[in-house]
């Protein structure tokens, strides 16, 4: 997955780690749901997906990501978008995510 990470990219990913997928119980970054983080001028663009299409968490996760990023980066224009391609698979879970998933 290509990630256009700006200078503050690592900080954005760290911030998004506060959002936990309520069903799986691990954060959306380690779950591999964050597809893109890009900063252009003052606009911070984040693309997210969900583990399954139609998941009722869609609205909640998008709103949560917007709220937490706006709080962390109040001077940026934050735009969070939900995307479905490529389709999320379990291969996208990070090593840290797999460890959390299996209670290690």
């Amino acid at each position, binding site marked *: 997955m290509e990630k256009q990470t700006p200078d503050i990219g690592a900080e954005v990913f*760290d*911030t998004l*780690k*506060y*959002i*936990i997928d*309520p*069903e*799986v*119980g691990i*954060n959306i970054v*380690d779950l591999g749901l964050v*597809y*893109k983080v890009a900063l252009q001028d003052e606009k911070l663009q984040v*693309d997210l*997906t*969900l*583990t*399954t*299409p*139609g*998941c*009722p*968490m*869609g*609205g*909640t*996760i*998008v*709103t*949560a*990501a*917007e*709220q*937490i990023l706006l*709080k*962390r980066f109040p001077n940026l224009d934050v735009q969070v*978008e*939900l*995307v*479905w*391609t490529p389709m999320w*698979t*379990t291969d996208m*879970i990070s090593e*840290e995510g*797999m460890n*959390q*998933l*299996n*209670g290690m």
Partner: protein
Amino acid sequence: MSTASTSNSPAKWVVLPHYAFAALAFLALSVLLLFSTDAFSGHYFHPKLLTLTHVAVLGWATMLMFGALYQLLPVVLDCRLYSEKLAVYTFGLLATGTILLSYSFWNFQLGWTMHLAACFLFAAFMLFNINVIQTARKAPKWTIEADFIVSSAIWLLVTGLIGLLMAVNLSAPFLPEDHVHYLKLHAHIGMAGWFLLLIIGVGAKLIPMFLLAHPEDTKKLNWSYNLINAGLVLFIFDHMLLHTKLLPLYAGMVTLGVGLFLLYLRDARNTMQRKEVDLGMQQTFVALALLLVPLGLMFVVSTEVGLPQQLMSATYLAYGISVFLGFVTALILGQTFKTLPFIVWMHAYENHVGRYKTPLPKDMYSHTLLRWQNISYLAGLVVLLTGVWFRDQHVILSGGIAFTLTAILYTINVFRMLLHKAHNLKPITYGKANA
């Protein structure tokens, strides 16, 4: 990248009353069971057994499945529910119809209360069908899961129609065959057409989702759908018109269909990333294992192997119990804790996530109560089936007590979630997120 819509979830007042009513119905069912131990010694066409069955299938199982489906249909079909208002009217009709019908059966009043109840229930199923079919028509992509769900709704309507005709026939006979003849039809369409197809349709989507598995090949599900529906249609024609000895063949088709669904789930389990299975999913696997009991008994009742009359009656009772108090109840007891915490959590915390530290859905109910619920349930089922098999009222009563305990534990946990409110939330402070 294609963009997606956000949440398709219905409002909480559409979904949550179903869970509350179903929990109370399960409690009522187990209490009624305590006062019905004498009814298990004869034929299944008994006022108390008819009451228990209809409280179980309508107030408990169908009520909960309606509520869960309003939440899950948008997930399975990836579109909004057609009408929330229709769902509320359906709830009112189903609840009133169930109470009236249970009262009528318990007191064996075959007059206007039973007719009204049957009309309310049929109207509820009609509105439910409109809602499901109109929602499915909006689905961006048609899937085999949608086939299962829409077909199950239609079979429910057929079940309700036969029930309505039978309710009228009890006080003003007009049907050519005896009542038990239609009761077999009514029961099997309800069991295989409504419950089984719906559970497979929703389970095929949800169970892999909860296991974080993505089985892609749906051939087994396609064949499962074809075999169960074909078996059911052939059974109906045979039962109504042909009267052949081929019932075990139709039972075999349904069994094969269920077997393919189980193989599909085995594929999912082989690819699952989640190695730890929580209590809700453990109970779901217990339910799937329990499904083998009625499938086995279905062959006994369909072959009419010449068992003594008393044993045959006990077998019929065990067959019904293993479907409704076995497979269906076990599944609901597990899946409630995979769906309800999530629904309540979403409504309580969706505006707080990202700003405050929030609990997880799994923190909203007692795991200890759930563990004891699962244990007392399994013990209750085994004891009840044993009591029915050996016609021992004391053993049946012991099973009823275990079921009552199960229902109390379940209801406490359900209402604990339903009454959950967000409070004392602490704002997120930045440090190490995974810490």
